[in-house]
């Protein structure tokens, strides 16, 4: 590395290492003996990691100031697994604007969630276990973010999945939580299968193309000697992509590049809950609410977006794969927003809103191209702002749930008086997500819309504007129902403000949600030339704000007061409303497919075959092995002279073999 790179740059590994150490310490030593200490130590480690991330960002942008060139650095790495000469997987830390962005988001939100959880989980039976898992998650997520190669990315990707699984099923004596955790794990694992195949394809061809590539770009001369065929820098290299896309091998007429990118996107879609792999996310709300805030709103679910962004040059080169990303994103955002308007469970509404916003980020990535990269910046910008306001929304929801002991918005109401701080912060976040000036969401959404419009995808632009309106509608729906009107349930009557440890992180996030929109993201995160903050594009702002206001107005008219108009509307819509409320019966479709078709028609016969034939075979081979062992053990007679005879026979055997081998 450069001699003048700072201390933090050289010790960047500390950022993921601190949570890992804390995970080990808390999990093995602290949590069994000193529950309270578990929370404190876990929190401190994340705060330390957060400080490191800030220092690292500061050092990086001091070296490479805003608006200029932002190279990808790998300040620390070591060879981890050498498969064969010229193919090794490294473990390391990659530093560039988007990894820094993610590091900051992950550590900040994680630190705040840790603080918040100290109060939220107070007195819970699994307090120590909770913080152990939370640390594990933070470590895995940071490891994923800083991965310099696709192998580390994949390993951490799976670790993130595991910790998510553990946290969703945190209340393991609650059957619905266990079912939800299984569902999340199976669905994301299924998606990861695609990712894995994609990784294998990439590394297989990456390895084969690698010698050509290094000859062509003069890797050794250009200081790229340490590059491995699985490094992102190599996989994103235009020379490599051109060679990869030009390979003769195709699959069903799709080029291998597009195929592997689509497979990688399958993994990303699973983790970021894109349609049709979204079904696990609403159920994942069974986990503790701070976990939802951290994992299922701010960080883990954006891993898919991050993965696409990380491989953006490859997606852009493929084109087709990018379009797939754009359309899946757009559809998911609309689809989820529609469902979000009908849900009664406050966390579920937020979950669908997360889906919708993730769709937004995906579509922004999808519409951008190698030349026109505004969407890339916009997507990262939205990821950044969304992390704060969505975490805040979840924390607010957590505070409310903590106070009223129910998830149903119809049992809340009138909470603004009893929980003033929660109310204010929730309102800020709601305004932010609805895209009202000057809150953060306004700016990032605005950029996404501008990107969609600028790239000429008018359908997608239209969908996005519509979704902006729907978002405002359903968010203000739950806002009005929860905080306005009269208390409708027993819990709502006895609600009281959250403790300081809970509201302080919320207040901090509220400030962030309000102001981060003014952050000149484009000067920091960009591909190629910095395009500069493009200012306010009226063609975008006017329809978006208009739709948002319409949404708010509709929500106000329907849900302020006793809500009889909403009931009447729902009745009028009848089966349509019911269909939406049942999430378009997607879960039922999956159930039908898995149970009726896969289990009954396919799995049962296979199981029968397995039981009768395969197991029989396995049993037989086990029996044969054991009998073989028993027979051979008879040679061991216990007679030392027999042993001596074997020894002598062995010598004779060696002589014979050597004779035949050397003659």
């Amino acid at each position, binding site marked *: 590395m450069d001699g003048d790179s700072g201390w933090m740059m050289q010790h960047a590994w500390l950022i993921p290492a601190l949570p890992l150490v804390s995970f080990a310490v808390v999990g093995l030593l602290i949590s069994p003996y000193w529950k309270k200490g578990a929370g404190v130590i876990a929190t401190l480690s994340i705060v330390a990691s957060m400080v490191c991330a800030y220092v690292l960002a500061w050092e990086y942008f001091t070296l490479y100031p805003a608006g200029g060139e932002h190279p990808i650095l790998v300040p620390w790495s070591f060879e981890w697994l050498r498969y064969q000469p010229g193919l090794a997987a490294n473990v390391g830390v990659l530093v560039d604007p988007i990894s820094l962005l993610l590091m900051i988001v992950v550590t900040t939100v994680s630190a705040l969630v840790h603080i918040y959880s100290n109060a939220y989980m107070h007195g819970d039976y699994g307090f120590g276990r909770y913080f152990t898992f939370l640390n594990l998650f933070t470590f895995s997520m940071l490891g994923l973010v800083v991965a310099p190669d696709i192998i580390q990315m994949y390993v951490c990707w799976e670790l993130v999945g595991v910790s998510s699984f553990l946290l969703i099923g945190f209340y393991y004596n609650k059957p619905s939580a266990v079912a939800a955790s299984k569902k999340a794990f199976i669905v994301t694992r299924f998606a990861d299968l695609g990712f894995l195949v994609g990784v294998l394809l990439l590394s297989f061809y990456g390895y084969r193309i690698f010698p050509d590539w290094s000859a062509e770009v003069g890797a050794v001369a250009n200081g790229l000697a340490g590059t491995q065929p699985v490094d992102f820098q190599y996989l994103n290299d235009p020379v490599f992509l051109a060679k990869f896309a030009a390979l003769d091998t195709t699959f069903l007429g799709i080029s291998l590049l597009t195929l592997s990118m689509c497979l990688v996107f399958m993994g990303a879609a699973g983790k970021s809950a894109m349609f049709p792999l979204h079904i696990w996310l609403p159920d994942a709300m069974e986990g503790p609410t701070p976990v939802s805030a951290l994992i299922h709103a701010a960080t883990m679910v954006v891993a898919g977006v991050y993965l696409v962004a990380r491989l953006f040059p490859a997606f852009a080169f493929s084109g087709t794969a990018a379009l797939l990303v754009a359309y899946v994103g757009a559809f998911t955002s609309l689809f989820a927003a529609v469902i979000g308007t009908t849900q009664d469970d406050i966390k579920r509404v937020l979950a669908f809103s997360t889906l919708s916003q993730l769709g937004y980020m995906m579509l922004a990535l999808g519409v951008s191209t190698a030349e026109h990269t505004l969407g890339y910046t916009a997507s990262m910008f939205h990821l950044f702002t969304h992390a704060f306001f969505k975490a805040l929304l979840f924390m607010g929801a957590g505070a409310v749930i903590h106070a009223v002991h129910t998830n149903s918005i119809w049992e809340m109401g009138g909470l603004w008086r009893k929980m003033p701080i929660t109310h204010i912060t929730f309102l800020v976040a709601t305004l932010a997500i609805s895209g009202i000036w000057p809150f953060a969401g306004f700016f990032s959404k605005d950029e996404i819309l501008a990107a969609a419009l600028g790239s000429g995808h008018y359908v997608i632009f239209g969908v996005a504007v519509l979704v902006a309106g729907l978002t405002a509608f359903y968010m203000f729906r739950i806002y009005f129902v929860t905080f306005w009107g009269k208390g409708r349930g027993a819990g709502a009557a006895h609600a009281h403000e959250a403790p300081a440890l809970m509201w302080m992180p919320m207040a901090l996030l509220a400030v962030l949600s309000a102001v981060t929109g003014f952050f000149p993201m484009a000067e920091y995160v960009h591909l190629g030339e910095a395009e500069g903050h493009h200012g306010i594009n009226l063609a975008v702002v006017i329809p978006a704000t208009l739709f948002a206001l319409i949404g708010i107005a509709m929500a106000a008219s329907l849900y302020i007061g006793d809500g009889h108009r909403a009931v009447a509307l729902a009745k009028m819509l009848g089966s349509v409303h019911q269909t939406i409320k049942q999430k378009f019966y997607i879960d039922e479709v999956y159930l039908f497919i898995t149970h009726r078709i896969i289990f009954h028609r396919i799995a049962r016969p296979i199981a029968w075959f397995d039981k009768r034939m395969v197991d029989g075979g396995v049993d037989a081979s086990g029996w044969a092995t054991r009998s073989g062992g028993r027979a051979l053990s008879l040679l061991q007679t216990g007679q030392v002279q027999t042993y001596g005879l074997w020894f002598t026979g062995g010598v004779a055997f*060696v002589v014979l073999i050597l004779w035949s081998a050397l003659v």
Partner: protein
Amino acid sequence: MSIIIPEIIVLATAFAILIADLFMNERTRVYLAPAAVAGLLLALAVMVVHTPASGALIGGRFTMDAAGWWFKILFMISALIAVLLSMDTLDGRARVRVRGMGFRGEYYSILLFSVVGMMFLVSARDLATLFVSLELATLPLFVLAAWRRDDPKSGEAGLKYVVLGALASAFIVYGFGILYGLTQSTDLETIAQRLAGERAPAFWLAAALVLAGAGFKLTIVPFHMWAADVYQGAPTPVTAYLSVGSKAAGLAFAFQVFYRIFGDALPHWDMLIAIFAALTMTLGNLVAIVQHDIKRFMAFSAISQAGYFLLGFLGAAEEGVPAMLFYLLVYIFSNLAVFACIIWFENETGKGQIEDYRGLSLSNPLMALGMTLALFSLAGIPPLSGFVGKFFLFSIASKAGFHGLVAVAAVNSTISLYYYLRVVRQMYIEPVDERVPAPGSSVSIGLSLALLSVPVAILGILPTVYEGIHAATIAWLASMPQG
């Protein structure tokens, strides 16, 4: 001169313990084990401080090189842990007293003599020193195996070991005699030079005799027969030391003869080595399945592990040697960790059948966890160190073109997983009929297990150690006469 200091320290410790024992009473003899530990630690420290030591003494009859450095470190670590594991039994701290385990001073000094023998073995460059140090390494093991004076099984184990060991020595020394006759030299380097291209039948006979001797120490089928009975009959701490020390010495001896004497002919023997590797792992694994006594079970496990070691001889030395050394390291740690639990369990309960371990996860979860970890490492489950070690060895065999052998090895790995899991199943899954009384804990064994578990878990993930071994091997090969 400094290169021989570790040997001198260990030897001096051995004598000091022997003499001190004469003037001590039963109460003060508990300090003998710490003294042995201290001596070994001091020797280890000198060894580490003097890296990378190389050089020759006594007219080249005692030389030191990078690979030898690793071997000596491993020998000393094995002995160190063996002493730690023996302490409770010998000092009578076991809850179920093991009778007939007296004479502590002798025990430790004999163990140290054996270590010195092994250390000289890797430094030997002459048939005489090679043979004498091999005997010095082995003879103490005979004595240790027969240590328990009131246990007929221990005596029987010792007798079988000594008879077969003497037979192996006779084969080796006769082979050496023929080699001497062929080359008129006892210097290994000269022998290798004069043997180059040798195709006389006498050469095959000599090679066969020496290989059989090496196979005996390494427990290669069909020279392995002694191992099961000796492992089972010997006192458990001795078995622990035998299982790693004897194997390490066997590998060191195999190194000496394969690379220093037969280096020229070795590439022609790959088929022979492959056959023995396949035989060894298969037989060891199959017979291990039907065992009930945990020590006998570990004996067959050790036999099958020896088969994996052989794979390393199939490839080029610069790849095979580091792989074998690394696997030896991993094997020593994992096997000693398993034996730490076995010794502890025997001390606490006096039992040694696999079925007796039922419910251990409830009565002592930490011990059960340590044992599980080590067994998984032996079975080669990623990401434990055993997996990485096997991975290197398998890849060498596959590069050498022995795909069938790799398939056999992989099948054997699966079989071994089955029987290692048998133990784990007893500890974790089998229902417990009565509440197992919570066994006590032991400082020395707990410490050893803790020390061992860490490398078992992380050696596979941290590549530094392997890289160190690799670099050492390259240095060693460079120091070899004709590369």
